[in-house]
């Protein structure tokens, strides 16, 4: 029953996406492991690791799209959930180092020896077991998102205000994790990993496996997200995005839906972070930097928000471009390009790259009959509690815009 529900959810594009992912999950590791490095078809280990990283970013973008594209929650702190998942995985990997560290202490990680700590802090207990760590990868970001969302949505903090406090959240976490006495390695973070589930993190086989798992996780994340947005609850989420007050007046507990989707999204981000860490070999507090989280938003915007596939695509596109820029002569111009991307996409490509393609069939994306593109964000400006000045602009600033949103002009 549940399986059926999952498998009925994707549309034709979704199936193409899933098929591509499955193909990548099988072919890329195969080309890496079984094709000799002299062959032109060989995929180098660096490339595998790089694309594995992109897949993790794609999952992160997908999770943000679930919250932003379908429920209008623009989180500028999604990098925090990603990093928390990553830290949970990092703690497991640190415990796996065991006595092979520089100080050769059987339990304490090197940085704790360096800080002259005598025993393991309580929150490090259990991380030597993978199942426990796996639960934590979902639970820590999930619980934080639940508590944060529950408080924020209950008191109807919406729109830009929510964005700013999510940004403050990740900023606060960054400051905290930079401290040595937090017990997460401070400035240097967690690194120097050796094993994951008994396999060497550095070995080609493990890297190829991690790539496949990342592709699998992305596919799974897509199926879950797709199932959610296609369900009845998904329709309510879209209603919340487009007209929050109206949905509330119709009797829906808006804050429950928002908390649910925010928490789910945070868990997915946590998984993305957990898969990211063994592939790059380090997790440090700079992952919490507010700028990182905003960058995730532009991945989603580039691909097309409210499309799920577009978000994943955008993440891969932007990161591929970033790699191409930063390894070449153009490195100093990457930030110009990224900045221009922000401006141009918001001005000229409000529905992202995917919006350029003809629509195959109507889905959960709001109908665009009502005028200029991306009307979904109007809801944030139009709902009463957002901001007096902005609301004013929203409703009457441009005659065209005002006519385009009859719901909000009242």
């Amino acid at each position: 029953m549940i399986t059926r529900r999952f498998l009925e959810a994707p549309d034709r594009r979704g199936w193409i996406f899933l098929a591509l992912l499955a193909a990548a999950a099988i072919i890329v590791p195969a080309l890496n492991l079984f094709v000799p490095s002299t062959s032109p078809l060989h995929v180098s280990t660096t490339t595998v690791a790089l694309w594995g990283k992109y897949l993790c970013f794609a999952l992160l973008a997908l999770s943000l799209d679930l919250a932003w594209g379908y429920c209008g929650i623009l989180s500028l702190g999604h990098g925090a959930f990603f990093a928390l998942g990553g830290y949970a995985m990092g703690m497991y990997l640190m415990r796996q180092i065991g006595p092979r560290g520089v100080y050769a202490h059987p339990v304490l990680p090197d940085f704790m020896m360096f800080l002259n700590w005598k025993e393991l802090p309580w929150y490090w207990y259990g991380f030597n077991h993978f199942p426990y760590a796996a639960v934590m990868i979902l639970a820590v970001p999930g619980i934080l998102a639940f508590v944060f969302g529950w408080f924020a949505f209950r008191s109807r903090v919406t729109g830009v205000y929510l964005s700013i406090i999510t940004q403050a959240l990740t900023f606060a976490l960054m400051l905290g994790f930079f401290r040595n006495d937090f017990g997460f390695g401070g400035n240097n973070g967690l690194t120097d990993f050796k094993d994951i589930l008994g396999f060497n993190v550095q070995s080609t086989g493990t890297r190829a496996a991690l790539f496949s798992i990342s592709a699998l996780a992305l596919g799974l994340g897509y199926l879950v997200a797709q199932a959610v947005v296609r369900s009845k609850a998904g329709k309510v989420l879209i209603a919340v995005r487009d007209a929050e007050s109206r949905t509330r007046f119709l009797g829906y507990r808006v804050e429950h839906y928002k908390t649910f989707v925010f928490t789910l999204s945070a868990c997915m981000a946590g998984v993305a972070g957990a898969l990211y860490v063994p592939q790059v070999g380090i997790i440090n507090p700079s992952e919490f930097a507010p700028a990182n989280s905003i960058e995730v938003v532009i991945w989603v915007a580039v691909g097309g928000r409210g499309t799920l596939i577009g978000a994943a695509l955008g993440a891969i596109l932007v990161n591929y471009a970033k790699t191409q820029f930063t390894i070449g002569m153009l490195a100093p111009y990457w930030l110009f390009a990224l900045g221009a991307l922000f401006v141009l996409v918001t001005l000229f490509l409000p529905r992202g790259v995917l919006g350029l393609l003809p629509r195959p069939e109507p889905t959960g994306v709001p109908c665009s009959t009502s005028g200029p593109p991306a009307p979904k964000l109007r809801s944030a400006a139009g709902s009463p509690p957002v901001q007096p000045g902005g609301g004013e602009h929203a409703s009457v600033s441009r005659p065209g815009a005002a006519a385009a949103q009859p719901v909000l002009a009242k």
Partner: protein
Amino acid sequence: MRTSYAHVMAVLLWSLGGLALAGPPAMAQSYEQALAGFAADAFSDTDAAITAVAGSGHPLAAKVIGALQDGRLLFNADDRKIYVREPSGTVLDAATGRPVAGEAPPGLKSVRLNNRLRRSVEAALGSLTLLAPEPSRRLAAAQAVFKSRDANALAALEGALARETDVRVRKAMLEARAAIILTQPSAREADRVQAVGVIRDRSDRDARALLGGLPADLPPTVQRTAAEAITAIDRHLARWEMVQHLWYGLSLGSVLLLAAIGLAITFGVMGVINMAHGEMVMLGAYTTFVVQEIMRTTAPGLLDYSLAIAIPAAFLSAGLVGIAIERGVIQFLYGRPLETLLATWGISLILQQAVRTLFGANNREVSTPSFMSGVVELGGLAVTLNRFWIIVFAGLVFALLLGVLRYTTLGLHMRAVTQNRRMASAMAINTGRIDALTFGLGSGIAGLAGVALSQIDNVSPNLGQSYIIDSFLVVVFGGVGNLWGTLVGALSLGVANKFLEPYAGAVLGKIALLVLVILFIQKRPRGLFALKGRAVEA
């Protein structure tokens, strides 16, 4: 003259109640006699000679002791005469201070020192400066004696006290004397109690440390008064500490106010989420730098006044960039706050990178004009002048902005457009132009903040980023669309931050504050001074 001075010293000493001093009354000996003590080159004789020379009050005493410290004091073992070799190489007769005629006598050796003697030399030099002609040097010497509490300096201190006319120096000397008496085991009980009183009146950290570190074997009366004095000083210090925290808080609050007040216009009044606001601040700081560099090459004499040019220049440059951003990007995004946020973030990346390309990624040096550097002591409060002027500047900018909004035609139009755009448009107000000007005004004020921040912060491409989150929190905390809310928000966040810091540390204090503000927004989603009535619904 010399003898009469020694006489006074002797009388003073006697009147002190026969305080035992090391060695015979040194002043009675003449300077020349004392000098001869160095010729023996035995450590005990040298020590006596140091005390004697320092106490003689002879004008050459400081030079001789100084030479001894540097190993430039020479003696001739045969005729027991003492010479000073100047750093330039000329050799002087220590008794007369005149250069030796002809060749320096052969067989000169320098007077040796050991560690104990070096301490005596330092103490002697300290007490010698007690008689220096400049009051500032005398004050410093008295304070040094207070810290060292060297009993050997007591005699010199008494002598200096008798001649001292400057009230502040005199007070410092009395305190130094009290400190010595207090730690002198042979001093009389009554003197010591009195000394505690003197030190209690000083009421600072050093006094607290001195009283707290007294030996346990003191007479009970002294101990009791000392304990009382400690409590009194602690109370006094705690009060001043509060004032100091308040001052730091005000200072931080004024910086936050400057950074946030432009945002209060663009975000608060216009409703535009300008993530590039911090970069406007940065542009202002770099304008200050450029103006200063131009002044440095064209008119170095007027460097102190470069801020007077930098202020309007920063306002104009940041304001013009702001207008360009509004006309080029933001005007197409009104009513779409989340997209505005993304687009302006992109602009901020471009501006940062542009500045990095133009000026390099390193911090740039902006010099502080002389009237802004230095510290003024107000009681127990250390007021740094640059912080003081920034508070004044923030107040001025705030008042000016209120004035512009309240009394000028532009301000009237701005308020009209934000309150009811259609009606304003019907009254022949060019709303597009007003939008651009309002945004320019907000950005220009951010540029002014940059001028102020260039004085206390590193001028780097990342300057603005460190303030953007704080600025948003201030505006949101204070209540959107309300300048007074921004003022109260900035000052209360600044003060709260500085009061949290001593308990939680800088980083944890900041985190605590962020969490508090997040919780506060839950409670009052529209800030401290929320707009009421119809304005909210608009």
